[in-house]
């Protein structure tokens, strides 16, 4: 069965510093990979997705992620964090082809310090 691991439950980053959130997946087939962000009391907003092609994908709000098949990873990065980025971030994997239910990680809570 597919699984997604986000090893960091909480991460604190100073405003203006760079950010990397880790995501590892286990999937038997060609995966589709996603990062979502969830602010308190809100639904999930898609930051970016990888389906195929260039392994470095750009998303909204200045985020990017790199797919590394050899490491089964899809880490999220941002060069300079803003206070408004404080939220919970979820990595998810879906199956290529057909309809795709998503399997989510448990999330990483990002705290931004002044």
């Amino acid at each position: 069965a597919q699984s997604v691991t986000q090893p960091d439950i909480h991460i604190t980053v100073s405003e203006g510093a760079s950010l990397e959130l880790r995501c590892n997946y286990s999937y038997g087939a060609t995966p589709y990979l996603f990062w979502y962000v969830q602010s308190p009391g809100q639904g999930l907003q898609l930051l970016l997705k990888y389906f195929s092609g260039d392994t470095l994908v750009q998303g909204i709000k200045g985020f990017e992620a790199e797919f590394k098949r050899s490491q089964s990873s899809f880490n999220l990065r941002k060069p300079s964090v803003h206070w408004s980025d404080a939220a919970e971030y979820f990595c998810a994997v879906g199956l290529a082809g057909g309809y795709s239910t998503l399997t989510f990680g448990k999330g990483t809570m990002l705290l931004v310090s002044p």
Partner: protein
Amino acid sequence: GAGVSQSPRYKVAKRGQDVALRCDPISGHVSLFWYQQALGQGPEFLTYFQNEAQLDKSGLPSDRFFAERPEGSVSTLKIQRTQQEDSAVYLCASSQGNSGNTIYFGEGSWLTVV
């Protein structure tokens, strides 16, 4: 509509009570998903509809959970004889259909069973 709309946003139910949660997907979206998100966890898949057909209900935790989408648009998730472990956020999502399409999430219905 502009986004996925869910109601009620917040529901407090007494144990044993039946509840119904409504989801209005984005107009024209063929695929509709329900997810359950327990506190501190990532969303977990419950069920999937393609138009009015429920193609996958493998994630429904018990026969107390029932979902329908009779006209291929609005969907209702019903929970009978609620129990405390049913307390969670119930997220509805929709997409245009194929696995390559973005899945859009609503803000969720927060259910607390007391």
